[in-house]
């Protein structure tokens, strides 16, 4: 029997107070995610239970108990305070999926800092945008990434500390850089955890939009209530589970369900920090007897490409429950997983802004392959008319997915950008920016984005940020960036580029531009395809009509072109 039991009964009787009671939280009490995931679990008698099994590149491995994690997060929190860092300061985590990233996250929260995790593949320009906006005070990173920080340090006067977790002394550190070795540092038994309250800021995740710079989605410690409860009812985690969330904590899934959800539940989790290879992933499941696996459609489709014969070479019978997140899970992938693992992947839907799962398929519920599932108990969801923003009263009609903002993990604002945050609400609904329809049984069916944001491999990439970077290339006069369909990543970045006079389109220029964006922003943002054009379609007011270019890529109707400028 699953934790959620019968979905309809659970939805009828659910209140968030259920989670508060379970976590021993009452209104007005202190609530610190770092403390809840470590000290509290130890007080429950699970100090000797394994918290993290980690494997990295080159056969490295480390194992930590909950008591180790309590002590190490204390140690990190203490160290940060000795540097003079205070509550409310933004502390960036810029690392691969190493244990220091996971424990650093909780250590920052324990000392009252705001954790700002950033994807370690980001280039200097992506990093600069986000550190500048958040006025980040410190960054915790690895030797291999420190050069990217050095590239931008001169324009970040507020960044006081660059903490390198694996410095080996082979090269001298520079100004503002310090070495800190988590496993070698003297462990701190007692640390006075910061007395955060429900609305105390906890995490800042940057997310991309169609226009403007990336926005810092600001979460609070009370988000724990929703992350804990959705972990229980959607991921169905149990005390004896071995859980594997493949997401990187540089993105929200990696923190909400790669740190907070499982560890506040006292569950053992595994982390594999060695990129993607189907055989290595199956071996990891076999070796650690993974029971619950939370992954992403891009990974699942990549596994599909390798076929079921490869799966059969490994013992994956430990798997009890599978979930997916990041982009819509196509019906073929659900059907394939039944064939390969004897059970379907359950699709889940949510966003950086929502902080926790909003619409999902639940264990025990009939899965309709290709459907997003139904709203989480306690979540009021609907689809709104595209023009009036009123809930649609007919099934099967496409509208905007929207939620009544009454759940614990909704962001409280965008950092330094309250006006954009407010613009996300219409008629009292939070507008997700995604389109869907609802069928007669209340299942949601994803249709696509309502804006130009590109979902590639489960990560949102803003076209504006890429177009801005492209303009910095000496050959680019103007550009338009759109998502192009891709069988594995759902979408990949495609750039239409008009060159400056004196430059000629060539294969070498194509590669040069690709690498230019990859190094400045990130591999995700790198155009996988570039089309050189003489000019870009524009409105009479001069705005580039990405919509036309996107429609062409997707083989869709171009729609209204009445505002198109005549050449």
């Amino acid at each position, binding site marked *: 029997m699953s934790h959620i039991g019968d979905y309809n009964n659970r939805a009828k009787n659910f209140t968030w107070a259920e989670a508060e009671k379970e976590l021993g939280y009452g209104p007005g009490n202190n609530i610190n995610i770092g403390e809840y995931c470590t000290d509290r679990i130890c007080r429950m008698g699970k100090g000797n239970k394994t918290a993290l099994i980690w494997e990295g*590149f*080159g056969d490295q491995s480390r194992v930590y108990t909950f008591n180790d994690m309590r002590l190490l997060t204390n140690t990190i929190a203490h160290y940060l305070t000795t540097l003079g860092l205070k509550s409310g300061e933004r502390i960036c985590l810029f690392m*691969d999926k190493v244990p220091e990233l996971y424990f650093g996250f909780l250590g920052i929260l324990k000392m009252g800092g705001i954790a700002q995790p950033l994807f370690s*593949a980001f280039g200097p320009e992506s990093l600069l945008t986000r550190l500048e906006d958040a006025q980040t005070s410190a960054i915790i990173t690895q*030797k*291999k*990434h*420190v*050069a*990217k920080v*050095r590239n931008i340090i001169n324009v970040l006067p507020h960044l006081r500390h660059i903490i390198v977790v694996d410095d080996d002394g*082979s*090269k001298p550190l520079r100004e503002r850089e310090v070495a800190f070795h988590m496993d070698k540092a003297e462990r701190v038994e007692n640390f006075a955890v910061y007395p955060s309250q429900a609305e105390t800021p906890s995490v800042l995740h940057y997310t991309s939009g169609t226009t403007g710079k990336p926005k810092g989605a600001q979460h609070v410690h009370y988000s724990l209530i929703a992350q804990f409860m959705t972990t229980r009812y959607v991921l169905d985690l149990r005390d004896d589970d071995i859980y594997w969330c493949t997401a990187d904590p540089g993105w929200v899934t990696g923190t909400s369900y790669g740190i907070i959800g499982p560890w506040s539940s006292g569950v053992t989790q595994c982390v594999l*920090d*060695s*990129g*993607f*290879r189907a055989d*290595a992933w199956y071996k990891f499941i076999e070796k650690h007897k993974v029971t619950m696996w939370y992954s992403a459609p891009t990974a699942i489709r990549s596994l599909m490409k390798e076929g079921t014969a490869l799966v059969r070479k490994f013992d994956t019978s430990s798997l009890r429950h599978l979930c997916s997140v990041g982009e819509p899970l196509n019906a073929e992938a659900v059907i394939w997983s039944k064939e390969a693992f004897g059970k379907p992947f359950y699709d889940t839907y949510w966003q950086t802004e929502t902080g926790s799962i909003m619409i999902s398929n639940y264990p025990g519920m009939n899965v309709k392959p290709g459907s997003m599932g139904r709203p989480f108990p306690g979540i009021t969801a609907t689809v709104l008319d595209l023009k009036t923003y009123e809930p649609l009263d007919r099934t099967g009609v496409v509208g905007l997915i929207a939620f009544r903002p009454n759940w614990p993990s909704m962001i409280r604002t965008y950092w330094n950008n309250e006006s954009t945050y407010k613009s996300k609400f219409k008629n009292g609904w939070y507008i997700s920016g995604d389109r869907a329809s609802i069928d007669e049984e209340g299942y949601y069916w994803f249709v696509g984005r309502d804006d130009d944001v590109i979902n*590639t*491999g489960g990560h949102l990439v803003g076209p504006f940020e890429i177009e801005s970077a492209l303009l910095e290339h000496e050959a680019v006069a103007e550009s338009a960036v759109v998502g192009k369909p891709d069988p594995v990543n759902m979408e990949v970045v495609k750039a239409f580029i008009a060159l400056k006079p004196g430059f000629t389109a060539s*294969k*070498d220029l*194509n*590669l040069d531009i*690709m*690498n230019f964006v*990859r190094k400045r922003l990130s*591999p*995700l943002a*790198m155009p*996988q395809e570039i089309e050189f054009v003489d000019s870009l379609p524009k409105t009479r007011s001069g705005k580039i009509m990405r919509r036309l270019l996107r429609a062409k890529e997707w083989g869709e109707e171009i729609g209204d072109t009445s505002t198109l400028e005549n050449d």
Partner: protein
Amino acid sequence: MSDVKNVVLNYVKKEYLEEDDDREITFETPLISGGIVDSFSMVSLLVFLENKYNIKIPPDEATPEAFDTVNNIAVLLKRYKVE
């Protein structure tokens, strides 16, 4: 063949390692499973090879395994008469 391998190796060092990254990379160093070239960046490595040797490698041959080491890439290129 070693010329081809050296060309690929030097390109990987130049394009995919940070300036201060002093990791030793050889013909046998895992690039994809070693975290030096991720799956998105692999596309730019593919484009480099296609441009450099004037060949077209279809998607089903441009796999993470085929690109995992310089030696593997050399084996792949050999099928296109590049050696």
